[in-house]
């Protein structure tokens, strides 16, 4: 079984990846723009926040700058696609690769420790919560605020234009929507959220590392697809809730898999488990329908 600390740890990381899943929802689902920039913008957010915190900045301001940095990275990807006509997937890979160098430059070394520094979590430790509960409490709040803001945005005139851009670009243009600008705004917003996730991750783990972005896209996608398998995303609100639920369920599943001694799995098996979980999440809903179809056919 999971220890209490492992359980809270899984929820804590799950909430952070919920923010990543929000970002991936915007790029993959709303805009239909397969964006791999996140593997670079996640450590970018971490790097910016860590450097600024070490430089004596207020941790919330530092986190805000991480969002801005993430948005800038997303905007670069989108502009490569919209203005230079580079295929969206390729554009995002280019930015992702470039960000590896940028992140090393920002940090000045492959990793930075934040031990003993004041982070966004510091004041919360004085509230009398148990040590492992503090990040969960704060991240629930952050995720909730992000979810509400994003939901309202998607219901707004601009948000609706963004959804139309991804769903039917020709129709969107005919309605007077500048589809190029919508793609830039959406991909920037998406990576801003991922930058925020990176900044919070660095602060809760006590370090920023240039390699911490590897596979973020897959984990985010796993959360998104897994969440959609649990909660059908028939409305924007349901889709956003699915992101958070999917991310937490995914982290819990990983924690259980690694903790179950019978399975004999070790930390190094993480990526394999992720790949298997994503495959299952994609295949299972279709499989369920096939089974249901067969059952009803038999009845009839």
């Amino acid at each position, binding site marked *: 079984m999971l220890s209490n600390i492992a359980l809270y740890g899984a929820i804590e990381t799950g909430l952070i990846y919920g923010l990543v899943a929000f970002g991936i929802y915007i790029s993959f689902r709303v805009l239909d723009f397969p964006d791999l920039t996140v593997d670079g913008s996640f450590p970018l957010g971490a790097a910016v926040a860590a450097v600024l915190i070490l430089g004596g900045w207020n941790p919330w301001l530092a986190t805000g700058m991480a969002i801005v940095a993430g948005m800038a990275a997303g905007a670069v990807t989108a502009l490569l696609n919209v203005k230079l006509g580079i295929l969206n997937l390729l554009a995002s890979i280019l930015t992702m690769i470039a960000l590896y160098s940028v992140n090393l430059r920002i940090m000045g070394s492959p990793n930075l420790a934040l031990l003993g520094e004041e982070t966004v979590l510091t004041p919360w430790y004085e509230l009398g919560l148990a040590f492992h509960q503090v990040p969960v409490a704060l991240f629930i709040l952050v995720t909730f605020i992000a979810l509400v803001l994003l939901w309202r*945005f998607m*219901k*707004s*005139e*601009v*948000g*609706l*234009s963004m*959804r*139309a851009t991804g*769903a*039917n670009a*020709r*129709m*969107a*243009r*005919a*309605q*007077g*929507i*500048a*589809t190029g600008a919508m793609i830039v705004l959406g991909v920037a917003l998406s990576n801003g959220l991922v930058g925020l996730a990176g900044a919070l991750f660095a602060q809760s783990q006590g370090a920023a590392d240039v390699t911490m972005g590897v596979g973020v896209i897959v984990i985010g996608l796993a959360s998104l697809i897994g969440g959609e398998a649990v909660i059908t995303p028939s409305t924007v609100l349901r889709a956003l809730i699915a992101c958070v639920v999917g991310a937490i369920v995914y982290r819990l599943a990983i924690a259980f898999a690694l903790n179950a001694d019978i399975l004999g799995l070790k930390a190094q098996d993480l990526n394999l488990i992720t790949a298997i979980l994503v495959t299952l999440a994609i295949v299972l809903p279709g499989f369920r329908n096939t089974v249901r179809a067969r059952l009803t056919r038999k009845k009839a």
Partner: protein
Amino acid sequence: MISAQNLELTFGKGTPLENPALRGMSLTVNQGEFVTVIGSNGAGKSTFLNALAGEVIVDSGRIEVDGQDVTRLPTHKRSRRVARVFQDPLAGTCEGLSIEENLALAIKRGQRRGLTTAVKRNYRERFRQALAKLNLGLEDRLGDKMGLLSGGQRQAVSLLMASLTPSSILLLDEHTAALDPKTARFVLELTQEIITEQKLTALMVTHSMKQALEVGDRTVMLHQGQVVFDIAGQEREGLEVKDLLDLFEKQRGLEVEDDSLLLG
């Protein structure tokens, strides 16, 4: 009012697939006129409409809508003046969005969009009234996904969306071609109703010569990227498909080989 002068457009210039679509095409449509456009495949009908809408930018020539030069403007910057209904019933609406969300997109066509709620409460009443006129029972289904509607219903909603806000010109690109005959008739009647009611300047591309003569008040035939004839008023009245074909052959001295024109 639409004024198109000497439009030239060649696709794939400098490649083996070079294809001149518009060759000195000129046409002036007056305020409130309803023009039907016919021509065989590859005559340049759709390209001409796309050039007016801004989906393609012409190589040379000049396009004015209501006296404003729009030749170089992209689609979204012309959208305030230009409303459009596509041939494909799925193209004019977003199937993943609800009926009211689609209408909310259309009600802001060509206008600045902000961060206020897109589907406003006072819009809903307007949407309901507009939808009720279609007699399709859609006024009670504002929250339903567009994808749940049939092709004919979606095309009717597309028409409604095009007429929700005032525009200078309405472009209809064979918008009844993909529908079954009964639905096609319904959508065509609705089109005439809306155009008459709002006194719209409209351009309707059609594959059917019969339809071209039955509706509208002027008929233009395109051939090889040019206007080959242009009839209106008394000259057009009482004209039949056969006369139209004779006229075409006389004008061009050509045999009409495209069966679809004869069968239309």
